[in-house]
């Protein structure tokens, strides 16, 4: 699961460094992408492309492991064998996705250890939605269904991008996310059509999560700048607003269908334009949270930091004089 929040803020055009690239190689590189070819780890690529991809894949990987925490806390509390086993398998998949993605990012020259260090030092980000709390089982169900649904919208688009190892990782990830979506939907339906306690829990969780879901795809295109070159290089495949609109189109009817409501009186589809209308999310709050001041930022990083510190002796033990770091190939 993953959102594009804050992934794509580029430096201003003047600082892209493109003027230092070999113009012939650059033209050839862009022509390959335009023809729909994939760029592979040992191929020539502009420094900016490498940098943006590392950043994007790394943030995606971090989102998977940090995202496993809010749902992970419900593994030990999942009600009944069926849910307990499914929740475990689902969260395990997310950690597996992180493993795949760190490998994909490593092909570009940054080690997993370095990425994890940057995560706990706050140098690199992860999807902002995981900075919000999951106080009930129903919150975990909302994540499994709707956050994963959002992630699929995003990832299916990115799987058509230009960097081979990332696309291949995304193909595998999307296949698993499709199961998560079914699991999440099933859990939400059980709650939404269940006893009064269950229905109330589910509606409250949805109300809590809706503002965060609306920011999942990142700031409005009106505010999000500098994406033109990333689109041309097929690093970014769809705009934030396009992804958001597609998500609303696919899931709002499903949410309403099971008798749940959404806490936005302005939410409606404009049949003429085909676009959804809604109350503009609070982007100032979004910025505040993404920059570290959300309800769970400190807790999430503290858990990750503790895991890194407590496990350091194991990693030291695995590093023998005979072993050396090998960059994965794909």
């Amino acid at each position, binding site marked *: 699961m993953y959102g594009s929040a804050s992934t794509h803020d580029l430096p201003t055009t003047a600082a892209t460094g493109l003027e230092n690239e070999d113009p012939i190689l650059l033209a050839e590189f862009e022509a390959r992408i335009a023809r729909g070819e994939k760029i592979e780890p040992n191929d020539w690529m502009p420094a900016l492309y490498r940098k943006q991809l590392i950043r994007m894949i790394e943030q995606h990987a971090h989102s998977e492991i940090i995202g496993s925490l809010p749902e992970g806390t419900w593994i030990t509390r999942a009600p009944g064998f069926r*849910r307990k086993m499914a929740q*475990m398998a689902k969260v*395990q998949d997310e950690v597996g996705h992180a493993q795949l993605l760190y490998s994909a990012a490593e092909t570009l020259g940054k080690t997993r250890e370095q990425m994890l260090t940057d995560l706990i030092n706050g140098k690199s980000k992860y999807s902002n939605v995981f900075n919000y709390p999951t106080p009930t089982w129903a919150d975990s169900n909302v994540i499994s269904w709707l956050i994963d649904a959002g992630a699929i919208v995003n990832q299916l688009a990115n799987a058509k991008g230009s960097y081979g190892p990332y696309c291949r990782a995304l193909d595998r990830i999307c296949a698993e996310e499709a199961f998560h979506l079914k699991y999440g939907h099933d859990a939400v339906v059980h709650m939404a059509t269940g006893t009064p306690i*269950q229905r109330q829990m589910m509606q409250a969780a949805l109300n809590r999560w809706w503002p965060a879901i609306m920011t999942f795809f990142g700031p409005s295109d009106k505010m999000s700048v500098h994406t033109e070159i990333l689109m041309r290089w097929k690093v970014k495949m769809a705009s934030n607003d396009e992804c958001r609109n597609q998500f609303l189109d696919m899931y709002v009817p499903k949410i309403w269908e099971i008798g749940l409501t959404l806490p936005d009186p302005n939410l409606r589809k404009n049949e003429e334009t085909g676009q959804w209308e809604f109350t503009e999310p609070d982007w100032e709050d979004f910025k505040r949270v993404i920059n570290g001041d959300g309800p769970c930022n400190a807790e999430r990083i503290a858990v990750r930091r503790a895991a890194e510190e407590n*496990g350091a002796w194991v990693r030291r*033990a695995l590093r023998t004089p005979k072993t050396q770091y090998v960059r994965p190939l794909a």
Partner: protein
Amino acid sequence: MDPKLDLLYRLADDQLILGHRNSEWNGLGPILEEDIAFSSMAQDKLGHSLQLYSLLHQLGEAEPDTVAFTRNAPQFHCCQLVELPIGEYDFSLTRHFLFDHAELLRFEALATSTYEPLAQVARKLRGELKYHVLHANTWMKRLGTATEEAIERMQRSLNFTLPYALGIFEKTDAEAEIISTGLFVGEDELRSRWLESITKVVAQTALEMPDVLSLAPVAGGRQGQHTEFLQPLLDEMAEVFRLDPTADW
């Protein structure tokens, strides 16, 4: 208690509680691969416990969900080893090593039980348990021959965990009948096979094997006497289930 019920409750409760504990490694493993491995083993153990609770249900006990999610600690028959918190990785690994060697041998023996439904389950589970033992052995050998720091940690964990592991083999009043009816070879026999099996692996490391049989086993679990850690675990496990026991979750 009926010998079949007695045996099944011990097996099922061990698997459930250790599966639950192993699942707590989510997000906390020393490397991502170990998060994933502990989760796989947790899923297997939970699945094993479900199969065993299903056998109990066939014998007239309540539904698996009811049995697993509504009893309190004194009604549990797990050994105390499985209920201890996950601690640091060296403890969880050592517990996994000591427990799964016993489980593999136990289910290999149960594959020829005179109680055919259990024998059938055992024949299936032993295949999965082989991988758990393979995982444990790989890591014991790797860390038990690695840095001074790792060896010292593993030795400390082995010394701490062994008395609890001996509690796996605590006998109940039904033991004589369990053996005489051919349900199972019995705990003494299992313990001696286990000791041989773990000793072989420890011998391939820099760790010293304590004189196991001179250690006092931490017993009581099979009689419903548990550490202070079990009831909070059960309260957490049932937190949602108990909100509305009539609900279909």
